[in-house]
């Protein structure tokens, strides 16, 4: 990435990057809860913390200033300090909406939103925007709707030759 590009990216994500705190593997949940309490008590202005299920021993701290985060974690048992660098919001969101285990033709159940509980057939998947278009099965007439991939749950794999 050129210096110019890098600068542009930094500006664009000025309000939405994450610092990374490392913990002993398996202790990230306990450490995050202690951090939450400290953030609230001391009004540190950190709006969220996140632990990704696929990354053991890491806590992502939204919009934390390095010295604030350093202070925040000092003395917490099982905490192993900060990693260098920061992660943009888009990377975090991508990691959360990861389950692309769904394919066109699969039968899915909608798990959130106004259509929760309905079943549908997957017509199209847009992994870039993290959305899936499904046709609701129980509707009187076929009704295609577009949802976030994480709002559906796989019920049945498409049968071969279908």
């Amino acid at each position: 990435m050129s210096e110019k590009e890098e600068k542009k990216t930094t500006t664009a994500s000025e309000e939405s990057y994450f610092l990374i705190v490392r913990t002993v593997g398996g202790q990230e949940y306990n450490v995050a809860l202690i951090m939450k309490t400290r953030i609230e008590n001391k009004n540190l202005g950190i709006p969220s913390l996140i632990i990704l299920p696929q990354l053991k021993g890491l806590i992502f701290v939204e919009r934390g200033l390095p010295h604030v985060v350093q202070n925040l974690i000092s003395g917490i048992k099982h905490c192993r300090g900060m990693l260098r660098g920061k992660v943009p919001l888009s990377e975090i969101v991508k990691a959360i909406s990861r389950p692309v285990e769904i394919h066109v033709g699969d039968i899915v159940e909608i798990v959130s939103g106004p259509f929760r509980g309905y079943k549908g057939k997957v017509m199209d998947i847009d992994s870039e925007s993290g959305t899936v278009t499904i046709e609701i099965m129980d509707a009187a007439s076929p009704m295609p709707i577009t949802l976030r991939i994480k709002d559906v749950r796989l019920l049945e794999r498409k049968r071969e030759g279908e």
Partner: protein
Amino acid sequence: MSTSARRRGRKRALPGYKACRNCKAVIPETEQKCPYCGGTDFSEEWYGLIIVIDPEKSALAKALGITRKGIYAIDVP
């Protein structure tokens, strides 16, 4: 559920807490009803955590459509 978790070698994320299958809120196991959505369907197996401290100021909460402060699981299998 716990059997399959053990088979996959995944330890429970945070003993003493369960996740609401409806809204994914993570709450103490002793709660009978989800204080967020009123749901009563819970899972002891859950992974990943989103701690929203200030939903107004959190770009993450906005991106995920979370409007209330709280603790949420990411995966509730």
